[in-house]
């Protein structure tokens, strides 16, 4: 019986995993676009609220010369790869790692939203979209892990 319990890997809801992958993909699209714009010389325009330029050209838009958009793109693609790896191999350790990592995105998002609201006093819609993706990923991560724990207890 004991052995049985150990063999039983925590079950992850496939729906949650797919949703996680979807948001990682959305986040990647967004961050990749910002990265490409960062390396081009055109200003990022987003209509009436000109906050985009202020934010994406601010001193906070790069850490030691590396644009944060690029870091974001790598982060999202990392989560996406882990999700696909899980879907391919059904290795739940990998998925649990991805779910845990989503906390990094939440912390980073809180920091960047704070910067936009209180320091730059300008909002960039693409950056907010990334913050929303990251937060959603974290929430899915919470639910995913809780669901998995439940099945273990059962």
């Amino acid at each position, binding site marked *: 019986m004991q052995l049985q319990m150990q063999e039983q890997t925590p079950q992850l809801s496939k729906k949650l995993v797919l949703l996680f992958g979807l948001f990682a993909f959305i986040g*990647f699209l967004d961050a*990749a676009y910002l990265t*490409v714009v960062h390396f081009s010389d*055109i*200003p990022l325009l987003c209509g*009436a609220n*000109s906050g985009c330029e202020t934010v994406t050209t601010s001193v906070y838009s790069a850490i030691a010369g590396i644009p944060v958009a690029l870091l974001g793109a790598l982060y999202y693609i990392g989560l*996406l790869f882990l999700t*696909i790896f899980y879907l391919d191999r059904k290795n739940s350790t990998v998925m649990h790692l991805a779910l845990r990592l989503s906390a990094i995105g939440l912390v980073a998002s809180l920091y960047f939203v704070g910067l936009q609201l209180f320091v730059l006093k300008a909002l960039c819609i693409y950056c907010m979209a990334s913050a929303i993706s990251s937060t959603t990923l974290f929430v899915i991560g919470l639910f995913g892990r809780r669901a998995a724990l439940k099945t273990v207890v059962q």
Partner: protein
Amino acid sequence: MENNTLSKKQQKRLARAAKKQAQMQNQKTGRAVKSTATWAITLLVIVGIVYGLVLLVRNSSTNELIGVDTDLSIESTDWTIGEAEAPVQLIEFSDFQCPACAAYHSVVKQVISEYPSDVLFAYRHYPLSQIHPHAELAGRAAEAAGIQGKFWEMHDKLFETQASWSARASVKDLFVEFASELGLDVTRFEADIDSDEVKDAVEGEALQARALNLPGTPSFIVNGVYVQNPPSIDAFRAIIEDAIANAGADTTTE
């Protein structure tokens, strides 16, 4: 020979085991193929997306007009701010209903106020009527106010209040109200806004913009040369400083 010694039951079991093994082998290779396909597609999609984004951004920035000498200069018919003999002529083609133009309005205002004797600024109409239904009328409102000497006052008012009228169905009454707030002769304003003279003034400049293939609004022309819209006020100052330096260099060599 040996097979004969096995019972039928054993033979069956052996066959079944062999079949199962083959199946498992198949499954294994099947899974490997699926794995490879999954990762290949993933990588392909990601590379495709990045390439697509690069193309998209590059296309939106490839503006063949950048740096092109349009041969435009400020004329006596233009509405201008600054010294007539200023070394730098800045022409803006703009649309009163365009949000980017409203955003640039404060930038332009600030920059030209910093170089009062170096920059002569002119506003020209380029109403993008397909996307901005009130742009043409707003242009005419500014022209009609101009007849009574208050072009710039109306120009500022239109940009500053843009958000409040842009989405309205009808704006004419509001523009008349603006005219009265600016202390204009309202009867005259109402007649002028629909006059051929005013319509032609707006239309003529729009035609000029279209003939130049200006990509949109606002479009800035500095001493005849089309420049890419500066992403910040500092970048705008740099363009003006450059133009002043170039104009200075030209006159010293002459």
